[in-house]
Structures are given as C-alpha cells and as structure tokens.
C-alpha cells in the first residue's frame, strides 16, 4: 500500500487550467481569453525589443553564475523601488524602504504574506476586494492569514461600488490588513478615479489599516508608468507606510523569468535594515536566493537610459493595443445587433475585462464557440486581435441575446 492512498486529487487551477483546456481543443477558431499574458495582433506572444537588446548586452558581458544575495540583485531591487515610488519620492531618497527580489508577483506576495504572519501581530485578517485575483486567497491562507472582504465591484453597473467599498472599509477593525490593486484591477479592470483614491487613503488612515498594494500592471494599464503608480505614491505621501508587491511579468513580458519585488516602506533606514534581515530569514528556507535571469534583464532595461526609453514606448504600445481592442469589441457587438450596454468594456482598464457574462453563458462560449475564459466572465483582452474580435463579438452576442 502507499503512503498516499488518502491523498485527494486536487482540482485543476481555475485560471491556468483554462489554458490547458484550450490547448487540448482542436477547433481552428479557438480563442484563449484565460490567462493574462499579452499577445500581439497576430495572437502571438510578444518578446519586447528592449528585452532582446538587454539579453544581448547581458550575454556579451559573460557574467558568472554565482549565487545572488538572498535579497536579490541590488541594481534590480533599487530600480524596482524607484520605478514604483518615483525618483523624487522622499521615501526612496531617504532610504526608508527595503525592497527584496521576489519570484514575480506571486512570490513577492507570498514573502509579504509570510512576513505579516510572523511580524504583524495586531491582526490575522487580510481584507481583499470582492472579487480579487483568485490566487490571493490561497496565498494568504497558506501563509497562515485569514481572509475577509470589502465590497468593490458592482455587478449591476459593471463598475466600482465606491459607496459600498467606503462603507465596508469604514467598518474594518483597526490595524487589519487591507489589500488594494494599484491599477488595472484583476479580474474586473475597474479602478478608482484619483478623487476616489484620495478618499480611500483618508479612510484607511482613519481606520489605521496596514495597506498592502499589489501592482502587477504598472505601465500596462494606462500606458503611463507614473499614472499607473499614482495611487501607490499618493498613499505614501499621505504618510501611509505601505507594503508593495510588484511584477514584471506583464509590463516587460518576462512571465517565465519570474521577476518581481516586495517592498516595505519603513519609518527610517534603520528600521528598513532590520526588516530586511527578517525578510532574508523568511526567504532562505523557501528557495535560498532568487533566479538571476529576469532580474538582470529588468535591471538592464531600467538602468540603461536608451533601453528604458524604448521600454516605455513598448509598454505604451501594448496598453494602446488593448484599449483599441476594447473599442473594437464594443463596436462589433453593436454591429452584431446587441442591444445590451457594453460601455463597461471600454470604461474598464488593463488586461482584463469583466464582461458581466454568467457561468452558464461562459460554459456555452467554451463548448459551442471554443472561446475560453474563466467562469467569472473575465476575459483577457490581450487575447483579442483585429482578426478575431468579430468572432468574439458574434459569440458573445449569441449567448446574451
């Protein structure tokens, strides 16, 4: 007999499982609108030019493969912090922050979650927006935290339930942890406006909450890295010492290289050093030290003026294509004769769109049209092209008319 006879079969991952089902489908018209990976207008993965250039530069330097420090590549972590906080940030300039390299967004979130479990004794409760990225809940749970929620998305309007959010947040017990999506909310694509962010900041300050920002799409949402980081920077300026997780998977197309960072804004540089030492103690028994390749590429891009400029242009290009697909989807739905209000498709921002489709409708899209998305009706707009937007509009109209 086996040690594992009682081990249950785990359910397929809801998000990554979509791609796996898509791959098995033989329909030539199939569309993968599941996982958030950018595609060009031919539906192909896009390796950024600045990435290729950075790789060539790195190869020519013939570097060795010695272990990185536990906290990661210093040039990378410093540049990541500066990208998020802004070069004029007082917190950045004074050094009252620590940034460690993490395994893309997930790994950075997990380091932060473990850190809070160990050192944030005031509360076990992490408040997520309703809905949030599916993996947030298990990450925090596996780290030993408890999950709560605040209202966020209004399914009736397919937009932000701001009064609901403010109402719920006003009742969160002091010193709880609240997670906010910095920009391009996943899965809804619904972001607060700047005025609303200001009110949110005032409220979390009033409630004395620890703010955890997840920023996976800086640059990718509006096309402007400063605009996308506005909320993060505003909160810090308001004296809120946030913690922050960053991913370079989407905005640099470095998905499989796992480049990310976790930052803690501290009272002063001394506190930052102490926090850093504890982060290292958490990282060492997880994977010892992080992988170099993605961090080196990202660092080369961020720290080389020409490459950085090129990167900003390419990120804008990706964001612009997404925005254009949103516009085309809506116009195609009108052309199909749909009488429903699809304005949320263009109001929403970033890679994802909460279509408002119900699970039964999603199932029909998958089974009858080979259009793959997650059960919550979330589509990755990045998977839409000028070549298939018509088919998508047709399929959506068929299941919603």
């Amino acid at each position, binding site marked *: 007999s086996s040690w594992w006879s009682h081990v*249950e079969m785990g359910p397929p991952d809801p998000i*990554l499982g979509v791609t796996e089902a898509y791959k098995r489908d033989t329909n030539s018209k199939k569309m993968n609108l599941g996982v958030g990976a950018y595609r060009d207008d031919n539906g192909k993965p896009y390796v950024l030019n600045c990435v290729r250039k950075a790789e060539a530069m790195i190869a020519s330097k013939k570097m060795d493969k010695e272990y990185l420090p536990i906290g990661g590549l210093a040039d990378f972590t410093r540049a990541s912090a500066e990208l998020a906080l802004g070069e004029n940030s007082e917190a950045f300039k004074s050094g009252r922050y620590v940034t460690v390299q993490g395994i893309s967004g*997930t790994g950075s979130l997990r380091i932060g979650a473990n850190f809070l479990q160990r050192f944030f004794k005031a509360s076990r409760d992490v408040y997520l927006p309703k809905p949030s990225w599916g993996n947030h809940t298990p990450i925090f749970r596996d780290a030993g935290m408890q999950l709560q929620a605040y209202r966020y998305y209004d399914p009736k309007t397919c937009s932000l339930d701001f009064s609901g959010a403010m109402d719920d947040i006003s009742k969160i017990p002091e010193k709880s942890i609240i997670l906010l999506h910095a920009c391009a909310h996943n899965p809804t694509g619904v972001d607060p406006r700047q005025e609303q962010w200001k009110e949110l900041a005032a409220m979390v300050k009033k409630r004395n909450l620890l703010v955890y920002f997840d920023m996976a799409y800086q640059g990718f949402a509006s096309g402007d890295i400063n605009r996308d980081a506005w909320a993060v920077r505003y909160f810090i300026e308001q004296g809120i010492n946030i913690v922050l997780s960053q991913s370079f998977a989407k905005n640099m197309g470095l998905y*499989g*290289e796992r480049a990310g960072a976790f930052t803690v804004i501290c009272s002063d540089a001394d506190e930052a050093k102490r926090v850093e030492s504890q982060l290292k103690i958490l990282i*060492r028994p997880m*994977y010892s030290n992080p992988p170099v390749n993605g961090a080196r590429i990202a660092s080369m891009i961020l720290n080389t003026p020409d490459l950085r400029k090129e990167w900003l242009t390419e990120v804008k290009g990706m964001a612009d294509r997404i925005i254009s697909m949103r516009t085309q989807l809506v116009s195609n739905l009108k052309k199909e004769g749909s009488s429903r209000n699809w304005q949320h498709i263009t109001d929403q921002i970033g890679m994802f769109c909460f279509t408002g489709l119900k699970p039964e409708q999603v199932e029909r899209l998958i089974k009858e049209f080979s259009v793959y998305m997650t059960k919550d009706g979330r589509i990755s707009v990045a998977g839409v092209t000028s070549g298939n937007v018509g088919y998508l509009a047709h399929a959506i109209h068929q299941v919603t008319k």
Partner: protein
Amino acid sequence: AYRTDEGQPWVLPVVKKVEQMIANDNSLNHEYLPILGLPEFRANASRIALGDDSPAIKENRVGSVQSLGGTGALRIGAEFLRRWYNGNNNTATPIYVSAPSWENHNSVFMDAGFKDIRTYHYWDAAKRGLDLQGLLNDMEHAPEFSIFILHACAHNPTGTDPTPEQWKQIAAVMKRRNLFPFFDSAYQGFASGSLDKDAWAVRYFVSEGFELFCAQSFSKNFGLYNERVGNLTVVGKDADNVQRVLSQMEKIVRTTWSNPPSQGARIVATTLSSPQLFDEWKGNVKTMADRVLLMRSELRSRLEALGTPGTWNHITEQIGMFSFTGLNPKQVEYMVKEKHIYLMASGRINMCGLTTKNLDYVAKSIHEAVTKVQ
C-alpha cells in the same frame, strides 16, 4: 561554489554553448512554464537521479516538480508532507536531520510547519567517520513513520557517506520501522565524478520498493547556482498515487511561486536530451570532480609529509566539496586570524578553495594550527 585552479568561478563550457543556442533560437519566448515546470526538464532530471533503466520510471510511478534549486525542492516536499503524509496534519510528525547537517534543513522543515525536528547520530568526531551504530540506533528508536532527511552523496558538511553495505543496513531498518526517506541530492556527479555512483543510494532504496522523495539541485553539477534549477523527484507505489500527489504539489507551488523560472531549466533540459551535449556535460562534471579529488590527495600527502600530528586519511576518504578537517574551534580561529584562511568554526573547509598555488600554504598553516594550538 566550485572554483577553478585559478580560484575563479567556472561557467561550464557546455552551459556556454547551450546558452548560445538558446539565445540564437528565435522561436523561444518568455511565456509562463506550466506550474510543475518544463516537461522536458522534469523527465530528464528524474531520469538522471533514478537511472535510465529505473523500474520506477518503467512502471510510470515517478513524478517531478521543477523547483527553485535544491532548497525549493526540499520546501515543496516538506510542505506536502506536512499536509498529506500518513493522514493529514503532520505538524507533530518527527523530522530527523543528521548531526551535523546543512543548517538550512532545519529552517526549511520548521517554516513548513513541523514542530518536532530532531537529530540523528551521524558524525563521529573521535574516529572522524560515520557513527553507523548511533545512526541505526536512532532509527530503531524513532517513532514509526518518522521522516528522515538523507544526503544522497557528498554529505554536507562532513563529506562522509555511508558505504553501499552501510546503506543496505540503513534501508533495512527504515523499511522495518516504516520510516520515510527524503533524499537531498545536491552533488550528483560532483562527488565521485560518476552520476551513477553518486546516485547509488537513491536507486537502491527505489529497488527495495520504498516510496521516497529526492530533492535534486543542479546548482553545483551544472554550475547554474543563480538560475535556481532544482527538481523534486517523487517515487510512489503506482501512477495513480503519483498523479494525486502531483496535483496537490501543484497547489502548493501555485501559492509559493506560481510557476518556476525558465532559463536554467531550458539549459539543463537541452543538455540532458542531446546525447552529444550530455556526454560533454559529463566531461565537464568530471573535470570539476577530478580537481577536487586531486586537491584532496595533494593536501593529504603534504600533511603526511610534514608529519602533522593526527591521521589525515579522512581528507581523501571524504567526498565532495567539503571536508571536516577535525580542527577544533581554537585551531580554526588561528587559521582565520593568523593565516587568513577562512573556514567554518566546525572545521569544515571547502575543497574548491584549494589550488595548486595555495596548497603548500594551507598545508603548512594546518600544521601550525595543530602543533601550536590545542
């Protein structure tokens, strides 16, 4: 980390070649790997550990999880065991780590939630060798179903491995007492120069019908330290059990790093799946192993020639990157402060730090430390 005779890091020639191939291949991109990793990497990595003719592979009862180095493989295995081994919730299941061991073993299992981490006798300081009786005794008296971390070869930090006969005795006790073997294999090929020889213990356990985990690292034998290339090999009773185990490991991976880094796995997979590159790699590995073996024999012969008090055969009998010299903390302090030779307080030296240029100096320094400091 390995050093050349010039004291420099060494990127393996086969790695340079394969990296160039990867760079020139425009069909490659940076898309996400599957959660469990690059399929070609996983299959080849487990094949390297278990052998081409492994009955477990033939019977389709081997699973693999690409991990962030050996540490990552250990952590995923530990997290899984804590959740699923021998019923659920194993926070109280004893974990046995050798005395001494790599210090991170303790932290990995502790952070995975195990509350009862114990040591088993291993290093006999008096005879500078394996305390087999102590080890077997600990296994006899360990609670049934305890988990034992075993070093597949080149024990870190002592460099002292059980002989095949001793491994057989260890396996017999573990089988009888229902103890779970979790192998840590960080030096396959690097220890003796032979992949098969260094995997003998793991393969023996498999042939004895054990279900086991083996955390593999490709940091040393591929010199891919900072790319974080590792693999957790799972051997189960049958395919169905292994499938379910992998599905749960997937969930653990998803909340730890989502999916593993691509670059290092590509390098290893490309190398292992090409007969020509595979031979080239084996040659590179042997180069490293041979240099270490040479340094061992040269150091020992110098100490014996100097007439340094004590016996020094353990220097050549030990294997792998490290050697437990037997120097005591005061003698180590002398080495560090007076001779500027850096070694651990335990007396552990990294043989890779020795070169033809510094052998004489190191031998003389050890001689001084032993004769001047008690």
